[in-house]
């Protein structure tokens, strides 16, 4: 199966603002890598269940206890922009 990627669409989904040159270069590399992955697609796996997690675990529950939380200042001081105890961002709507 030849791999044909709409790389601009993928970059937009990934929220990466890439230039035309970058898109072209990454697009070619991805096509090479995915052709390599074709081996996997050719493997017959009818009736094989997918593994999403290596160990047979079920939901782990911890005791519902109050514990200490981080002071807001300890992480707001590391934010690119913060105001009045909140993260500050540019406008959200066009």
């Amino acid at each position: 199966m030849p791999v044909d990627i709409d790389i601009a669409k993928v970059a937009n989904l990934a929220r990466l603002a890439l230039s035309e040159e970058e898109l072209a270069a990454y697009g070619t590399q991805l096509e090479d890598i995915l052709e390599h992955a074709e081996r996997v697609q050719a493997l017959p796996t009818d009736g094989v269940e997918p593994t999403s997690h290596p160990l047979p675990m079920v939901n782990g529950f911890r005791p519902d206890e109050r514990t200490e939380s981080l002071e807001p200042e300890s992480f707001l001081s590391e934010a690119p922009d913060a105001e009045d105890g909140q993260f500050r961002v540019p406008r959200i709507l066009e």
Partner: protein
Amino acid sequence: MADLADLTIAEAGRGLRAGDFTAVDLLDAVTKRATMTEAQLHAYLTLDSGGARAAAEKADADLASGDDHGPLHGIPVALKDNMVTKGVETTASSQILAGWKPPYDGTAVARLKAAGAVITGKTNLDEFAMGSSTENSAFGPSRNPWDHTRVPGGSSGGSAATVSVGSAFGSFGSDTGGSIRQPAALCGVVGMKPTYGMVSRYGLIAFASSLDQIGPFSRTVEDSALLLDAVAGWDRMDSTSIDGDVPAFSGSLSKGVEGLRIGLVTELMGEGIDPQVKAAVTAMADKLAGAGAEVIEVGLPASEYALSAYYLIAPAEASANLARFDGVRYGHRTEHLEGTTEDMMAMSRAEGFGPEVIRRILLGTYALSAGYYDAFYGQAQRVRTLMRNDFASAYEQVDVLISPTSPTTAFPVGERAADPIAMYYSDVCTIPSNLAGDPAISVPVGLDDQRLPIGFQIMAPALGEEVMYQVAAEVERLAGFTDRAPLATSEVVHP
């Protein structure tokens, strides 16, 4: 007396308690070694001199007052820079996190501190642990202590190099597809990936969550077990950590291999494996047989597909995990603020991530996107099932599996940098254990004709750390590998 920086953790612990030297002396010894070697190696991104000094002084004071925290008390230990350390810059070797000082310690870090370990600093890695050479660091590559024109392996190349030269007694890294074992092999030290869930991932900057696992680097198998003992066990902050009793792994080392069944993996001794590496592995298999083990050849047919499956699963999970780096709560925000928050995010990410990270985010995003999910990610997960089934059949026949750790010894800087697929092949022997979630360890067994170390891998079933360490200790004894990296013994001091 020999230089303190060359002692094992076990030896240093005995000397500390006998009053032969102090924790401050041990820290001074590794600091001096770092001063000698860092200009050539660049193994550390950050040396936390002040914090380490305070911790060493506290360790001495505690010991003097009879407050002994155990085998790591007063021992200088280095941490890969994707392990979150309170107040000490943590970058994962990415510009997107440059300057970030975390407000908390990850669980493994907190446990090491509670065990009295002295954290020397943060070591270099491939950005977000994506790579096999530590060349993909935004802050410059690390070099191999055996030959500084070669790579130390990766992604935990800095952690492997520090232990190799003695600028730390032990260190920790993370292993998603071989990122502990492969650099350990290339640097001639012991590197171990525990069973998935053995060590909490809380405070490990996530790459591929169903594969990532923290583990130790050391100069001996005994030290490896001592380091793992300190961090293993259930954690309320990681719902995937294993809930159950954890044995003291350092207790299982001197049992030998008499009567054990050991399987040499046929598919991992094939064409792509360097002849000298293959010969060293075969020689060790013969020695194990000579020591009383039953050694047979065992097949893991799905391992032929493991690499390709891994390079769909890991980028897919990474593309989701790395969505958190958006210039809002921490890390880099673009100065080109035009448009909306969404534009700010896309620009900040493009500026902050390096090329390999962008490549994998794009690959993962594509593999998860509508219409392709089942063909790529779903199929890779089914290969993962086949891989686990193969391991299950193998472990019906044998107690542990053996193979090379890396298909080659350390390769020259730049050799694979322009060819992602050649670089990905570096992990062909290590990836199967990550897909299965099983423990595995690399032990140095010798040098090739260019005096580069060869690593020998021992794989065990999930929660099989004890038998894995049992065999590793015997491999270490049979190999008698005592060579040290030339840089570690260099008399040249860079003032």
